[in-house]
């Protein structure tokens, strides 16, 4: 049985093709101004990779902030619901799943059946999410992907305030004026983000195992800071940015088995 999960995020659309509960291919595209078209591209890329056609798919499920704009969709699942499904699928002992994307960070607590029992979302501010790193990389004149490795070279911690992207940026400028080194400033950026996210997760309460997913999980600098702040081990799957789409594909499989259209 073939099912497809689509995650229509604010920056990228990700698609995952699932065959009998195993991932067989993935695809992605920039969301841009037309998330529907982007999702078509992502899905077609993934299906092409697996040598499949749209008609081979039993069930398409969509998640992500633009889920209602999804093409081919047979149903939707909330981002938090998809996080729980993917987290427990990837790590059966996962009970707390942290998802940090471009515009939003959230944490979901779930049970052993991957049913979410509680969740929390960052307070409508990009400072705890991926775009914050982008803005700070711009201020430091380094590439986004260089930020993580750079931060690991820091010899000591300095701090900035991540209450807001705008204020964060002016804090970074003051550090530049104080002639702090780039690695230290990069680390301060990740520490500030990790601070915000860990206090959010602590408000929810941590049940191990803790899993980190979302595009920002690929950033080694952020991961190092988050582990330090949370003080617990954090598991990261391969392809953490596809976890939302995977959760949707798993939901699609469950629904297809139950005969829900």
């Amino acid at each position: 049985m073939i099912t497809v999960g689509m995650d229509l995020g604010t920056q990228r659309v990700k698609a995952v093709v699932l065959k009998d509960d195993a991932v067989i291919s993935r695809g992605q595209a920039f969301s841009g101004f037309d998330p529907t078209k982007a999702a078509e591209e992502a899905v077609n890329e993934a299906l092409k990779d697996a040598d499949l056609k749209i008609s081979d798919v039993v069930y398409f499920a969509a998640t992500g902030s633009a889920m209602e704009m999804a093409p081919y969709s047979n149903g939707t699942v909330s981002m938090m619901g998809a996080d729980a499904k993917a987290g427990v699928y990837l790590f059966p002992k996962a009970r707390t799943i942290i998802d940090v994307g471009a515009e939003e960070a959230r944490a979901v607590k779930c049970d052993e059946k991957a049913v979410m029992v509680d969740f929390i979302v960052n307070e409508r501010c990009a400072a705890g999410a991926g775009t914050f790193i982008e803005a700070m990389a711009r201020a430091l004149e380094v590439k986004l992907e260089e930020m993580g490795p750079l931060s690991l070279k820091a010899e000591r911690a300095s701090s900035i305030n991540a209450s807001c992207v705008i204020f964060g940026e002016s804090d970074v400028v003051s550090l530049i004026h104080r002639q702090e080194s780039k690695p230290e400033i990069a680390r301060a950026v990740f520490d500030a983000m990790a601070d915000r996210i860990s206090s959010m997760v602590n408000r929810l309460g941590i049940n191990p195992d803790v899993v980190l997913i979302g595009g920002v999980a690929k950033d080694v600098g952020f991961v190092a800071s988050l582990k330090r702040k949370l003080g617990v081990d954090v598991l990261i799957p391969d392809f953490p940015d596809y976890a939302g789409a995977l959760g949707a594909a798993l939901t699609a499989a469950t629904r297809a088995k139950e005969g829900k259209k």
Partner: protein
Amino acid sequence: MKNEKIEKKYTPEIPTKEIEELRNSIKTASQKIMAENIERMKKTDPNRPEAMKYFDEIANLFGKRPTEILAEKEKGKKVIGYMCLFAPTELILAAGAIPVRVNSGWYDASKVGDRVVPVEVCPAIRSTIGAEMIGLSPFLELSDALISVLTCDGMTKLSEILSDYKTVWGMNIPRVKDSVHSLRFWNDEIKLMKAQIEEFTGNKITRKSLKEAIEQTQKATKAFRRLQDLRKGQPVIMGRDAMLVNQAYLWDDKVRWTEKTEALCDELEKRIQRKDWVCSPETPRVLVTGTPMFWPDNWKLPTLVEEANPKGIIVADELCSGERILNDPVGVDEWTMDDMLNAIGERYLMSSTCPCFTSSDGNEDRINWLINKVKEWNVQGVIYYVVRGCMLYGMEYNRIKKALDKINIPAYYLDTEYTREDVGQMKTRVEAFLEMLTARTEI
């Protein structure tokens, strides 16, 4: 009757032309929103009770009701507005005056209020200031005087700011409920307010007129509780419809509102006999609590819950714009003036679960109240709604959450603003919460 000569200590002078433009644009938008809210309520329940027609009409804040009040005023009646539910409306009624609640639910008016207070202030307060500055709210405009009960910080300063425009009487409410002095102190405030109202209206509050006002309000409470009780069982009325009925009491004629609510209940009882449910009995049953949600703009959370996918139904609330309006009757032993006044004092102070109070055990009253409500109304999940700047509700959340955890009831903290722009983000959260409630019941 605005006294133009009051020195404005807080508010800036705005040119008349600008005031008119602002008022007209917000009023036009608001009329559209009110109509849209009602259309959406009809769409959610295509078989809406007949009796709702009356409430749809009375819900028009620029419609029939302000015209009626104006006519009463022309016959010499006074209108006394109030912001918090602690204002003893029985005293207003007993003095032959008309009580109306005047908190603003207009989102755009909060932007006008930003000219006077920082944006960090609760938007319900900023919006009420803004509404007064541009003469937006018919009920606020019709008020000859205002009773402001000094509850939260916002309300306390709001009363000073509104003094730029009208006579405002502050009532000093004790915030430690179980102190022996508190009730005595508050009862004295009630007595002072009686004298104040008598002097202002020129009407003496007599034993007879006060007894009548109490009895009339008790009848309204009976109707109100009958409606709330009908929401305990299988779903027979959408939450939004019941919430609109609740809220209409704040500006409607009290006797007529009582009759119309009883008529609605009669109709609902017939539906219960026919097992004519308003939505699937499997629909997750939600209680909302937190910052008050004032008609017409601040209707977004109830709308989201009841239009979501999966859909929920609001079966109860713990809001001072809902359940708290009339939940508790004044209980009188002896119909002497003193006893009646003390009974009023006790009703307003002791029955409230507002987080502006504390006691030797914090606001334990609110927790007990919520837990009873959750059990009796078969609530499956609680949405804790807080607008930015509403400190007291925000700060009390963790205690409530812990108490609900103990009885295995999920709660979700939803923060928002007086704005329409965050509906998408709110929807994501509300739908995830409802999805969670649905998944819990399926297991």
